[in-house]
């Protein structure tokens, strides 16, 4: 197939997670008003980043085994 799908999935979600969390960290007060007092950008960004990183980890482990 040439390309392990986990690499683009992992890279995309790590990047999106970092963007969201960073944005949430800067503009915390104003943002949270919309989402009922939760700074959803920050927390969800962290969730995405963790997911993305674990996908990359799986891809890296699969490559090493080969």
């Amino acid at each position: 197939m040439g390309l392990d799908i986990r690499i683009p999935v992992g890279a995309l979600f790590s990047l999106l997670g970092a963007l969201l969390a960073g944005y949430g960290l800067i503009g915390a007060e104003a943002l949270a008003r919309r989402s009922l007092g939760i700074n959803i950008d920050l927390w969800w960004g962290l969730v995405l980043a963790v997911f993305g990183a674990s996908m990359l980890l799986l891809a890296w482990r699969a490559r090493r085994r080969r």
Partner: protein
Amino acid sequence: MHPQAIDWIIMGTYFAFVLGIGAALKRSMRTSTDFFLSGRAMPAWITGLAFISANLGAQEVIGMAASGAKYGMATSQFYWVGAIPAMVFLGVFMMPFYYGSRARSVPEYLKLRFDEKTRGLNAITFAVMTVFSSGISLYALALLLRLLLGWGFATSVALSALIVLVYIFLGGLTSAIYNEVLQFFLIVFGFAPLVLIGLKDVGGWQGLVAGLHTVAQRRGYAPDAWLSTWGVMGRARDNPMGIDWFSLVMGLGFVLSFGYWCTDFLVVQRALAADSMDSARRTPLIAAVPKMLFPFLVILPGMIAIAATVHGGASGLTLPRKADGHLNYNMVVPLMLGRYFPNGMLGLGLTALMASFMTGMAGNVTAFNTVWTYDIYQAYIRHDASDAHYLTVGRLATVVGIALSVAAAYLTNRFSNIMDLLQLLFAFVNAPLFATFLLGMFWKRASGHGAFTGLLAGTLAAAVHHGLTLPAGRTPGIKGGWIAVLHLYPSQMAQNFWTAIWAFAVCLLVTIVVSLMTRPRPEQDLVGLVYSLTPRERTTARRWYRRPAVLGACVLAAAVALNVMFW
């Protein structure tokens, strides 16, 4: 809704990845099998996620949320009854014949099992349907982008068509499948926070239950009507769907669901791309696991929105009304995105929606280019060209298929009635299909003449039934009753289900009768195509959870448990 730089950056990042994947895969597209069937080299978890994603277009996401508001929890019948059993049946019983016969498409299986004319009928109607479905996707996306971002119709259509064109042209089915996997995760991560914040808004699960009790009582139903599935299915007048359990089980659970999941090449193609028979069989079974949990992601937002509208929530979220005074249920998702998501998350939510529109379209385009190349071009136009020739034809078919989709999108924009009519015709054509496949795979006596006349008779029966019946409160015309009104159904859904039941029954009967009157194919030609003449598929999986039959049984048990929990 006011997207800002961060939202555009998120959307842009996604599109860059989509195109990048296409470019990275270009080198591995050497043969037509690479392009149309991903070289039959995909592991089961990827084809499984693609299988579910190809079906989860944005119309489905928006439509299911709308139905969640309109009908409540009972909407999940479309998943737990209307999908899971058929997906298990496909994986356990039917996949050995699709994958094992080395057919490259569903119409090609019909050619191997029956004859050329049955394949031709199926291939041509399928090709026409995929082009129009993909056009409808484009049209719906353009409407949504106009609403959310203020984009013009031409801009939205051109941009999304171009992106889909580039990544399929470069990477074929592999590109489509990879993007479906991306979309799967985007929908999950884009919609889960919507449900979480929404639940908080209406006061948690308790608050939602209280709100939905109010909704049901205000509309004259039992308090639980928006919260239960089977509990209110005793009589059609007890639930907002206007459906009783028998038509639900037979119409949706059997005929429509098996007809779609087990015979539609758009989904089956994903399983044919798998790297082995076991993977192909596991594809729909793996897909069934997220499928049965999707109601909590796509239906629950609608239930939250209606509870907030009628009963009130902390943020004051209220569904808008249409010009005629009815609530505009299709606004559930756009409204909640705009209300609950701050910039940043808004970008992610919009990306998830756009991704599902584009994969919905790409799924149709990849199915179209395969059926066109293998079942129409190779069958009727050029028999014995080189493989490289068919690869080129497939790439050209991608361009033509997308151009036709754009034309269909414009047609829909100009004449929305034409589209209603076409969708009605497609429903007539699809309704009897499962009878043909069921007899083809499990009755060796079924003949080509039988299958062909059965299909035509089933389609005719669907049309006649529709022409003779009408949902209550409608005027004769596109909704039915255009011959004469012999019977009134409590709802349009009930009419649809019974149209399918009639089409199936007539197709089954006519196929059997005509087959008995015509000569069957010699048994040695049917090995690998019919159940009784094919050696049982022995799984090579060593671990128990990788065996299709065991996995299928677990999936069914989980689906039953969900039905009981939300009885």
